[in-house]
């Protein structure tokens, strides 16, 4: 459809909303209070996680319940650096309390921010690649993948609690006060962190969008819909799935690393069973296999959570439960998917002469959602 039209116009309809929302988010610090901005920044780190999860679940059909693990890895690795920097060369407080005399060797390299950032990226990628390779190689699919990723996350969470002298135990890593020499309490630092989050989210969104439109993206969707056929055509589903899993893990890790300085604490609770499933509901509410949906869902659910639970903490969980059921039963397309369907129908009715191609997502509206059958 693009060849006949003005390329600039195509670009505008394609990326216009992205640019507009990007500008709005970049200007938000001028309007929002410090508290709200911090909250929004936190939600945007979740949106980064959601994009990764959408790639693997929405496009790849693999429901990972282990994104909390990768989020936690990113958060912990970055928190280790922040902790060492905040301490100014002294031993972290929880190590003193547990009677440690000197910094353990696994902590030492984290004094370097470059090393910490490298680990944030490489750590989740390697773990996901190893787990993914073995799981996908033996053709473990569907719910088995979900259960295995969930179990791994839980085990790491238990280990973190168990290794109190090295990890801070149940409390996690707390009292983070500085980043790159700037105080985290300083509003300017927080604005800078917020803006970095927006920019990184933008970059990841663009990359994810390019990825889903690439040959690889089409193969990924093909693998979701009919893995056997992709294999018979000579491609390797194991490679495709493992790569996607690793990419989604990196997204979660980056989200975690950006989360920590804005919230100032990371604890094993982030790696519990519930947070990982919460991440799934962000994507489900926004709309699977629509990247915008992942972002919208993460923002909507979390904004809803803070709005409702501030006033009625008891009702929120009922509401959330209803959201899970409703998202599956009534709106399997999610907010963005439903919107696109309605929009496509409206346009088809209005300009039936030159019915334009609205479809961006490979599944929205096609009826076939990211579902697979066991076995």
């Amino acid at each position: 459809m693009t060849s006949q039209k003005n390329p600039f116009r195509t670009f505008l309809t394609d990326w216009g909303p992205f640019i507009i929302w990007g500008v709005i988010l970049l200007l938000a610090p001028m309007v929002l209070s410090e508290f709200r901005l911090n909250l929004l920044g936190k939600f945007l780190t979740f949106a980064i996680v959601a994009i990764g999860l959408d790639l693997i679940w929405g496009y790849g059909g693999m429901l990972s319940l282990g994104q909390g693990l990768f989020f936690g890895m990113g958060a912990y690795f970055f928190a280790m650096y922040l902790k060492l920097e905040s301490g100014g060369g002294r031993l972290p407080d929880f190590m003193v309390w547990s009677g440690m005399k000197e910094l353990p060797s696994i902590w030492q390299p984290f004094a370097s921010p470059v090393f910490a950032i490298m680990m944030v990226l490489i750590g989740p990628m390697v773990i996901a690649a190893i787990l993914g390779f073995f799981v996908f190689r033996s053709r473990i699919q569907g719910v088995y993948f979900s259960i295995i990723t969930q179990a791994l996350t839980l085990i790491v969470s238990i280990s973190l609690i168990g290794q109190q002298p090295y990890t801070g135990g149940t409390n996690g890593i707390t009292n983070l006060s500085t980043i790159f020499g700037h105080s985290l309490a300083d509003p300017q630092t927080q604005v800078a962190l917020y803006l970095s989050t927006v920019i990184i989210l933008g970059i990841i969104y663009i990359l994810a969008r390019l990825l889903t439109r690439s040959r690889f993206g089409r193969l990924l969707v093909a693998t979701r819909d009919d893995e056997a056929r992709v294999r018979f055509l000579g491609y390797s589903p194991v490679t495709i799935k493992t790569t996607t899993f690793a990419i989604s893990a990196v997204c979660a890790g980056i989200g975690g690393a950006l989360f920590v300085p804005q919230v100032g604490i990371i604890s094993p609770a982030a790696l519990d069973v519930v947070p990982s499933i919460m991440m799934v509901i962000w994507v489900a509410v926004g709309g699977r296999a629509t990247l915008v949906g992942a972002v919208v869902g993460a923002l909507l659910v979390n904004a809803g959570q803070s709005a409702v639970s501030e006033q009625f903490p008891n009702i929120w969980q009922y509401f959330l439960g209803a959201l899970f059921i409703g998202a599956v039963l009534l709106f399997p397309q999610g907010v963005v998917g439903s919107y696109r369907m309605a929009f496509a129908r409206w346009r088809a009715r209005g300009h039936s002469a030159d019915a334009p191609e609205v479809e961006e997502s490979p599944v929205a509206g096609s009826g076939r959602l990211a579902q697979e059958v066991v076995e």
Partner: protein
Amino acid sequence: MVGWLAQLFNGISLGSILLMISLGLAFSFGLMKVINMAHGEFIMVGAYVTYVFQNTFADMLGGVDLGIWFILSLFAAFIITGILGVILEVGLIRFLYGRPLDTLLATFGVALVLQQAARSIFGAPNVQVVSPSWLSGGVNIGIMVLPYKRLFIIALVIVLVALIYVYLNRTAAGRRLRAVMQNREMAAALGVRSRQVDALTFGVGAGLAGVAGCVLTLIGPIGPTLGTNYIVDAFMVVVLGGTGSLLGTILAAMMIGIFSSVIEFSTTATIAKALVFVMIVAFLQWRPTGLVTQRAR
């Protein structure tokens, strides 16, 4: 030697608890392919049924120590959570067959609602159920003491497995159940009401979770989030055992139980958990469908 025997007993005991919490899941997940995340909450409901029984009926039935209320609560937990399961199947699960990942999300929503309901009714802090006096203490076999509670759990799980076996293989309802799970269309064509069988099967699975909850009150305090502690373990048991097979579930629970306590003996609990997980993933490399595979259709 004595140490190893003690570990073996601990392993069997842990295995029996794992089997207890997985039996229900072997129905809903193993047979029906429903990823029932609310399974843990059914366990929690069963535990609270026991708690309510203790508070309301214990005095009427000869006091807490005598424990008649406890025996009754086993049945009550089965019936109440069973009914809850049937309601859930009819109202929700029914619409989601063939979409396993969606059942996961929807039942997780149910789990959240049940948790919050428990919190609203009983409060967030944990509560303690006092065990009947005849379950305290243990039998001394010379080299070690076998606690009565542990023995009771092992005995109860044996009884349950026997009952399930009889139900599945020796009753008309069980035959219908197996028929529907193996070939739904054919069973329906021959006059089996497959919808009814679905609801009943899910109900039995939920009821078994309720019994497990009742038993868990013997082990420790109970709270609204009791179920989340067990749900992952239960799934691992059923996955390792191979879905659709009672024998596989039993073997898997015992294997995980014994491995865990033997490894725990020489290392720590967390390392044991991690190693068992690695072993399960490694095992699934070799046999992706689990220990015991059932060939159907």
